[in-house]
């Protein structure tokens, strides 16, 4: 890495090298039979160079030829992409608090054992198919730059997942448990999910009407995608954000806050972003008020703002980190917890739907906040009790209007397999369309 920096500097360039190496092992079972076994060892290097206010980029998976990588970056530099920033002098950091060395030695027998531990907890499923899976892996990440930054991070993770699928469908309810070195399964969560699954086996036709909608953590990404698109420095710089003239205004219910906090959580935390900026708790919406635009180095410089530590490599669907440029990202944003228990919120639902999965969350006018998703599944609730699951249902509206109708936020977050944890939120008077 250092050699690459030297070579770039010799060509009169400032430079940054981002490198990553990932190892993983996984296994899946369907109704007790192993159906998938795989492993992966992947690495990659990404080079960014700056010269005369221009940016050059290049990447490779195999760093066999440094000259070729630098040559690609210099060709890119000639294209003339404007860059008005410098790489940060972030010092030296080595973050290994979320790394458990024992994961390096884990292999197929370990994940197989994890699956077997989980399977027994789903024994009370009355019908349907159980998909159980487990995996483990490690990630080593390093960023060095010509401003003197040398930032290292090493993580490990182990997960187990149980997915109960309704008979004759491919949709169902899931529990995911994860840790940095071992999976700690919280039995009450599994019991509740199994009870919900059994109670929602009958399909119900509910017609078209407005009702309460409870959004659990699983489909919360559909909301954060839309809030993220509008609050991004990119949308502000391009003057296309629907929040453009609404800084410090109340844009939805005071019950809802959204905070980007890559350093929080139980695993895979980040103390620096993918450009080497120190991360911190960064409130984007506080008590329903739009408070901050989040950025990366590029858009911070364009808007004359301080970098917010939210420049990450990745898109809506993830992607190959080394090939993607850092962009403003709310990958680590969470809805702040509220004061209601889940049982309280369920009891508030005289008639409503719990949306456990969103089908088509990437469709529609995301920037504008339009949200029209299939309920996949939607559990139908009457008088605080689950009485079935909705047949061919959709919920639709605009998230700013929807979140204005928030009436409760759960008092604890749940892990759902993505990097962030979220609580449930309860919305009132939402348009639900069913067959």
């Amino acid at each position, binding site marked *: 890495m250092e050699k690459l920096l030297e070579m770039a500097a010799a060509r009169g360039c400032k430079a940054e090298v981002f490198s990553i190496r990932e190892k993983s092992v996984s*296994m899946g*079972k*369907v109704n007790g*039979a*192993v*159906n998938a*076994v*795989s*492993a*992966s*060892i*992947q*690495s990659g290097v990404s080079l960014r160079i700056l010269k005369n206010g221009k940016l050059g980029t*290049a990447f*490779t*998976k*195999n760093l066999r030829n440094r000259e070729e990588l630098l040559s*690609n*970056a210099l*060709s*890119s530099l000639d*294209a003339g*992409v*404007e860059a008005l920033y410098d790489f940060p002098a972030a010092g030296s950091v080595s973050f290994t608090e979320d790394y458990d060395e024992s994961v390096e030695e884990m292999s*197929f027998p370990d994940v197989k054992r994890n699956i077997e531990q989980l399977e027994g907890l789903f024994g009370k499923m009355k019908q349907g*198919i159980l*998909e159980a899976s487990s995996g483990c892996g490690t990630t080593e990440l390093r960023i060095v730059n010509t401003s003197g930054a040398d930032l290292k991070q090493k993580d490990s993770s182990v997960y187990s997942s149980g997915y109960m699928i309704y008979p*004759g*469908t*491919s949709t169902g309810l899931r529990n995911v448990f994860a840790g940095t070195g071992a999976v700690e399964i919280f039995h009450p969560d599994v019991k509740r999910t199994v009870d919900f699954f059994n109670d929602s086996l009958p399909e119900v036709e509910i017609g078209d009407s407005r009702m309460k909608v409870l959004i659990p953590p699983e489909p919360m990404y559909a909301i954060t995608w839309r809030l993220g698109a509008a609050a991004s420095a990119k949308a502000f710089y*391009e*003057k*296309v954000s*629907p929040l*453009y003239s609404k800084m410090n205004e109340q844009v939805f219910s005071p019950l809802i806050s959204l905070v980007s906090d890559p350093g929080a959580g139980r695993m895979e935390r980040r103390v620096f972003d993918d450009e080497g900026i120190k991360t911190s708790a960064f409130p984007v919406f506080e008590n329903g008020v739009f408070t901050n635009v989040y950025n990366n180095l590029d858009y911070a410089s364009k808007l004359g703002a301080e970098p917010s530590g939210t420049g990450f490599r990745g898109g809506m*669907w993830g992607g190959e980190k080394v*090939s993607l*440029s850092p962009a403003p990202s709310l990958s680590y944003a969470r809805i702040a917890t509220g004061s209601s228990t889940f049982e309280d919120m369920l009891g508030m639902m005289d008639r409503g739907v719990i949306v456990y*999965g969103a*089908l*088509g969350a990437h*469709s*529609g*006018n995301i*920037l*504008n906040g*339009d949200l*029209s*998703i*299939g309920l*996949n599944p939607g559990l139908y609730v009457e008088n605080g009790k689950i009485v079935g699951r909705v*047949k*061919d*249902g959709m*919920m*639709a509206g*605009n998230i700013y209007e929807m979140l204005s109708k928030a009436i409760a936020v759960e008092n604890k977050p749940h892990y759902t397999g993505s990097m962030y944890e979220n609580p449930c939120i309860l919305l009132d008077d939402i*348009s639900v*369309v*069913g067959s």
Partner: protein
Amino acid sequence: MLTRLKELISEADADYTDIRYEVKKETAVSMAGPELKKADSNSTDGFVVRALKNGGFSSVTVTREEDVPEAVMLAVQGASAMSGCGKIVSLSSVKAVNDWVEPDLKGDPAHVSLSEKIALVKKYNDLMLSQPEIANTNVNYSEVDREKFFVSSEGAAIRERVCTVSIGGEVVARRGDLTQNIRAAIGGANGMADLYNREDVFLQKAKLAKELLYAEPVKGGTYDVVINPGLTGVFIHEAFGHFSEADIIEDNPPLREKMALEAKIGSDAVTIIADTGIPDQVGFYVYDDEGVRVKETPLMVKGVLKGRLHSRRTAAEFNEPVTGHSVAEDHRFEPIVRMGTIYLEKGELTLKELLKRMGNGLYLCDGKGGQTSGENFTFGAQYGYVVKNGEVLGMIRDINIMGNLFTTMKNIEAMDNSMVLSERGGCGKGQMNIKSGYGGPSTLIRSMVIGGA
């Protein structure tokens, strides 16, 4: 390289082993509004090893050649760990092929400079930006050039180059706080020729984005609809196509029963073909990523299921013919069952006659992403129109469609006599498949659930 790959798997202690090595060259140009945001050309490579042993099957992906021996060992260990755990895997037998395939490109992008590609993107981008009420654009050039080398312990040795190019993105119109966007995409697997002289496409998209500012949000409910060819393609891909991928239903006995060959699940009007071998289409390839030559596969004929898309593993599991549809995104992934080009056969009516036949309903146009989950599907339409007595009236927006495969296939009533195949793919079934081509005519479907504001 093929000889080297044979050596790398020669010592594998397995009943079957294969290895795929790929060099993936990517060129990307991105513009956001008037600014160039990215322009680079890069190359990555990597290996995928698969092993079958005693009925267990496993795959391992690695980046570096020095890790391949470990990958072979892990693949055999993984297969052994699966062996005896309830599922016995076998691979459908195929002829081991030795071949080298080069695409017949009309303008090889490898011979076009980066600056020329930037100029082309800038031309289309600036054209849209200059239109009235257009606030922003995001336009990208994408070139993915994969050189694939496949070797199996059965003696297959195949080299194939697959090159896909596109220019696409979105144009954003703004009026006050309201923004509306329309997507554009041109390209294919045919080289640079598909990218030149396409100004009309981008002008039309900018015009539609502006018109959407004055459109009414659709009211949620159940409607009869005519969907245009762009949307028919997305519909066939999402609603039916994924269900014809054998691995989707493999471990779900009730769904396998519903999708048994010869089952009548569609109306007499519906004939659906998977034909990845159509030259010049975005989905085109000759061999899949386990060395099987792709073949035309009728999936549904007059509403009756006639075929299914398979890998060697699923073909053996279902005891059905191999089709050559086991495809990986790139060297980071094992192959899984994927669609190439899939389309709905056209009918005999004109579009005007089709709208007249519908009477009252919605005319919905062009896809805006979709997703499927078992028999349920959803997809967005970029724009649409209210139709009364067969006459196309006011424009509508914010349209998402939800349905159930088995209900909807029986509600397809008629098609017009047009046929349009997509120029760009992009299906995210665990991995991204940029070669998922689709298309068809305009299609009349009764009683679709539409989610609106």
